[in-house]
């Protein structure tokens, strides 16, 4: 099983179904159980635990998208409001809490950037007074990174490049089509198929009979 660095819960994986490690990663503390379900059940102590466990994750995303601290702080506060509201829809059978929270936060941040007519691409980091975590820290651990990189690199060309353009360069599908010279429909199909492969590899969703491929 693949651990999310610094965070409780684990992405379900058909690749390595071993139990989660007990060692705590450096970035945050690791509470037990499903904190989001506790939040949804009205257990207020879980709210602070979620902030402590996933605050660094959401903050790192905000810094990546917004760069400047003031905007990033607003984005983090907005993201956590969305997390509280979506807590009751969290299903631990589908994904780790960290991934679920990151998904919600990321969606809010992308939506905010779109409203402002800005590109949802990573922003360069400016100087930060906040201490950085150790240089070998990632938002997910090396094993998960390796798994995802393998999935992406094993994709048929040009799917790896298209996914990177879409997720890491913040390019829209039409922009990718223009850059690569591929028809827009082809770009969409490649990205969709690539994401389905990632889903399958990480066990995010059970495979469905007759699923699109």
């Amino acid at each position: 099983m693949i651990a999310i660095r610094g965070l409780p819960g684990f992405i379900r994986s058909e690749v390595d179904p071993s139990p989660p490690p007990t060692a705590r990663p450096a970035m945050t503390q690791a509470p037990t159980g499903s904190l989001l379900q506790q939040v949804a059940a009205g257990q207020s102590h879980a709210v602070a635990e979620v902030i402590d466990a996933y605050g660094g994750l959401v903050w790192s995303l905000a810094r990546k998208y917004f760069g400047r601290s003031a905007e990033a702080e607003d984005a983090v506060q907005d993201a956590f409001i969305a997390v509280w509201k979506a807590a009751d829809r969290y299903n631990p059978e589908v994904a780790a809490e960290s991934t679920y929270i990151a998904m919600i936060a990321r969606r809010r941040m992308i939506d905010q950037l779109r409203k402002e007519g800005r590109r949802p691409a990573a922003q360069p980091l400016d100087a930060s007074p906040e201490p950085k975590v150790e240089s070998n820290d990632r938002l997910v651990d090396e094993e998960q990174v390796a798994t995802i990189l393998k999935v992406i690199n094993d994709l048929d060309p040009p799917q790896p490049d298209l996914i990177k353009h879409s997720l890491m360069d913040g390019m829209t599908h039409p922009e990718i089509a223009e850059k690569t010279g591929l028809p827009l429909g082809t770009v969409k199909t490649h990205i969709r198929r690539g994401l389905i492969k990632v889903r399958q590899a990480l066990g995010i969703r059970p495979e469905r009979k007759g699923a699109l491929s």
Partner: protein
Amino acid sequence: MSSTTNEIPPRLIDLMVEQATQGLSPQDQVELDAALEQDESLRAEAEAYALAATSVELALTKPQQVEALPETLRVKLIDAAAKATAPAAPPFKLTGADAAQPSKRTEQSSAFSFTDGRMFGWYAAAAALIALVAVLAFEREQPTPNGTSPEPTLAEQYEDLAEDGDTIAATWGFNADAGDPAYANASGEVIWNADEQAGYMKLAGLPVNDPAEQQYQLWIVDPTRDAEPVDGGVFDITTQGETIVPINAKLRAEQPAVFAITVEQPGGVVVSEGPLHVVAPVQKG
């Protein structure tokens, strides 16, 4: 109703993938949301794409882009959480000085005025704030084993009430007389059912507010009861996308003629000076 992946219309799959990778335009978001409301399995499918995209992005994020949460921001988040988790029972007692604070507004010219019931209204506004926060964030049902709540969503509650033949509806619009362009893009609908004394607002295009600084407050003008508007409750806007807000009227409103929204101090006020940024006049007939 449920869908298997190979039954999902290609258009919806495109929207799901676009949402997961680049976000959607407001129009496309409305289209996707409408489809997801109809079919929970579609929502799961959309989230699966989003989770996959998120996982890839997290994995490819460079180590130097990973930071710890700043302590100042952590404190803000914890404080906000602590306020939200305050017990439903009133956490404070009004003293004479406390009670005088909101009434100061009555000494100034105002679009709205209350001749009595100030204490009741202030208590009610405070209680409404506590209840609203508690309901939104914490008084949820324990999730079922599949992680979904059996409670109807706000959208479902809205539609259920809207389908009642006795429910009236009005369209939100910018109040040009107030003249604040920040609210020029406000849109949406408000519905009210006098029999059930219940209603909802569907709002879009309002500026996101900081609850620590200001909150929106709804007023219901019902000329059949008296000249004073009914406090419809305070609420927050967290997105410029569409938001559904339940109406929390403090007094009965039998025949609303106009719904109006003001911006007030946190917790709302008993007497509003306006201006009425957004209004929804009820069409006769």
